[in-house]
């Protein structure tokens, strides 16, 4: 789940730490239901594929589908521009224990057919989500939840283990509430929504375009100034950019390589804080297939050979930050000292290789995917300067099975380490999703255990030590962190905050 979970997770964790008597609650409901003046039509582009109005079957996490689902459904919570949790359908919340969350729902909200949005509806959704789509993140985190109806506006959620990120998940694909009547035959939701959201679907060409009109008397109408919303699906980022620059679209996600042209055309660019990273996992640290990788000096040499500022500038321009740590700046676990450990020093890299017995370098096979080839080739070009030959093998359909096969000494991967503690466990633990060869390391495993058993400042310290140890031991070749980008037309603004795309409620006509 994308960046925004950071602040929210920390806030929730702090509340849990403070104990059951303290409570984390929302400040006030959002702006209210006063109908806004009609700002016309808002046309947005997104990679929506064939689209679905079943939010529990939509691609998981913080992505463009949040605009499609957010048009017709209300989510339990919202995320503010600074990452703070804000009220949605839930107007108050309280962790009564580390494993129990009480939600108070907004009274008087109805689905488009008049059915009330109440505690029973929330329970019906969360129960349905458990079996809706195997593997999807929004269903996985709900799988361990037990939902109880306390009264029509109060829901109690209990989990076996602490789930401090629930309130964030409820704002990012895991909290859209569908009319329970539609859940009796969810197949209808593929093309026909059944929600309580700000817009109603008026026409659609599945896989191509969806047109919505604003609901009369919506409870939060002031946040949606546009009377009509059109979402268009794009498979090609170049075609989407052409549409933006020709004025066909008012907004769309963007890739870094096209942003410069957009800025020259006078379009607005919104960038999140750089948090995600792509890099190479040096999996064969035992030296099983590539003996050189078994030597820590070799792994450090590879890291010293990377000119991170140059790579980040080439690939992400001003929307990236160089760095070698698996935690980006601003997160618990990041330290500037650790991040400057590998200053660009090819001479030192050659010396380390020579000390390790590889003065003429070696060959490093890397499992890659076509989408990552630009990055891997940039890294390969710099490693060639110290005599290391990178042999790139591209896989697409079977990339994951190849990655988990244990046959590859180095594997390209992409990660967003938020929230940090949970993601470090998923990345590094022997059973973690990112630990492709299920490797163990006494020191790392011990530090990892501490990050899971502690909270607050103690957890932050453990994270810092863990990240530093992984960095020094040369587990990865990471060039840096990249931002998510969103471009709007000259007449439109939006706020991406720490999201992957601008939420629908953040769009406004430009002043």
């Amino acid at each position: 789940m994308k960046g925004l979970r950071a602040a929210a997770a920390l806030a929730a964790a702090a509340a849990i730490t403070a104990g059951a008597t303290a409570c984390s609650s929302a400040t006030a409901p959002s702006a209210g239901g006063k109908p806004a003046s009609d700002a016309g039509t808002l046309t947005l582009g997104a990679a929506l594929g064939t689209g679905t109005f079943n939010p529990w079957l939509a691609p998981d996490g913080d992505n463009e589908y949040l605009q499609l689902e957010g048009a017709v459904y209300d989510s339990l919570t919202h995320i503010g521009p600074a990452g703070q949790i804000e009220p949605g359908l839930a107007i108050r919340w309280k962790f009564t224990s580390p494993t129990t969350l009480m939600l108070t729902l907004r009274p008087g909200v109805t689905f488009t057919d008049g059915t009330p949005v109440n505690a029973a509806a929330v329970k019906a959704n969360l129960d349905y989500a458990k079996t809706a789509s195997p593997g999807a993140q929004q269903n996985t985190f709900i799988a361990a939840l037990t939902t109880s109806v306390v009264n029509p506006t109060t829901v109690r959620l209990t989990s076996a283990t602490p789930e401090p990120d629930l309130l964030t998940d409820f704002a990012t694909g895991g909290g859209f509430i569908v009319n329970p009547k539609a859940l009796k035959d969810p197949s209808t939701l593929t093309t026909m929504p059944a929600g309580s959201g700000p817009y109603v679907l008026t026409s659609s060409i599945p896989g191509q375009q969806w047109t919505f009109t604003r609901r009369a008397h919506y409870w939060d109408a002031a946040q949606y100034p546009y009377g009509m919303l059109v979402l268009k699906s794009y498979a090609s980022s170049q075609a989407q950019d052409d549409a933006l620059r020709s004025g066909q679209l008012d907004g769309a996600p963007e890739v870094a390589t096209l942003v410069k042209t957009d800025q020259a055309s006078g379009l607005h660019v919104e960038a999140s804080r750089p948090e995600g990273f792509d890099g190479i996992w040096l999996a064969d640290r035992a030296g099983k297939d590539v003996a050189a990788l078994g030597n820590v000096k070799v792994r450090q040499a590879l890291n010293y050979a990377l000119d991170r500022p140059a790579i980040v500038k080439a690939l992400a321009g001003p929307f990236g930050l160089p760095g070698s740590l698996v935690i980006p700046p601003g997160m618990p676990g990041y330290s500037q000292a650790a991040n400057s450990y590998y200053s660009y020093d090819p001479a030192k890299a050659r010396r380390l290789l020579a000390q390790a017995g590889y003065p003429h370098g070696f060959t490093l096979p890397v499992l890659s995917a076509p989408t990552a080839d630009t990055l891997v080739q940039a890294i390969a070009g710099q490693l060639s300067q110290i005599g290391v030959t990178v042999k790139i093998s591209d896989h697409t359909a079977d990339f994951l099975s190849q990655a988990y096969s244990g046959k590859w000494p180095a594997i390209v991967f992409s990660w967003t380490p938020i929230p940090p503690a949970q993601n470090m466990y998923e990345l590094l633990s022997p059973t973690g999703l990112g630990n492709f060869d299920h490797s163990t390391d006494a020191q790392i495993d011990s530090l990892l255990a501490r990050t899971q058993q502690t909270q607050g400042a103690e957890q932050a310290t453990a994270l810092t030590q863990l990240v530093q140890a992984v960095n020094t031991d040369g587990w990865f070749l990471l060039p840096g962190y990249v931002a998510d980008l969103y471009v709007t037309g000259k007449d439109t603004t939006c706020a991406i905050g720490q999201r992957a795309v601008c939420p629908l409620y953040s769009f406004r006509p430009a002043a």
Partner: protein
Amino acid sequence: MSPILKMTFGRLALALPMLFAVATATFFLQQLVPGDPGSFILGKDATQAEIRQFDASLGVNRPVLAQYSSWLGRAIRGDLGTSWTSHAPVTQTLLAAAPVTLSLAVLVMIVIVPLAVVLGTAAALNRGPADRLLQAIAGFAIALPNFWIGTGLVLLLAVDLRVFPATGYTGLSDPAQWLRSLALPVAALAIGPMMGLALQVRGAMIDVLSKDYIRSLRAAGLPPRSVLFKHALRNAMPPVITTIGFQLLGLLAGAVVIEQLFNLPGIGTVLVTSVSAHDVPLVQGAVLLFAVVVVAVNLLTDIAAAVANPRARGR
């Protein structure tokens, strides 16, 4: 039975085993794609048990021959299965996309055939600077990739001048917008094939115009227009018609790229997205549809050539 009808039935009889071969080859080639659909479609968060359950629900864990026989049985009845990603019937998805690609192909043909005939004939009749200019332009236009032409047209006419939309497709219910939405894709697809066809027409016309019977017709005092249109052009047409058939098939391949460039929801886009998504039923359906179109175009080309040239009917 007329020779043309006889030839048509003969071609159709050959088409059926060919379609069967294409369908079979497509099915078995898909089996060679590495990885299982469950792990690809469900992603990295899915457990092995979930992946196995998903694969079982798709039936891909059954023996390949059993999968093939059930797929073929359904395909013969017109049921190409259900998309693994959108859960929509494959036939429905293809039928929704077909009008877009068909619109492109028909409009391109409407543009290129008359223009190529006029340009090629004019060049054949005026073997001077105009002819050399046509050949130079044609050589240049044929060498340009259609996506490059398309990108240039978008930048100039959509982004800068905003005369045409950069992307998207409007249905035939609004004919003016339909034409507008397809203007740039058609231009991008048409320029190269049109110049190639013009060269073919030029060559065929030069060849026919040099024949003895044309000189005889002229000597007999037939009006030049009659010699040109009734005799020369008609006799030059058979190789041109064959080339048109090839151009039309080439357009299908070009449409895959152009539909991506202009975000047109046609068969090419369906094919590309289904391949990317590992959506095997949709890939099989799209490939089979392409095969049907190839067979149909070849049949129509043969019929048209036979109508234009009686000697071709017995071949």
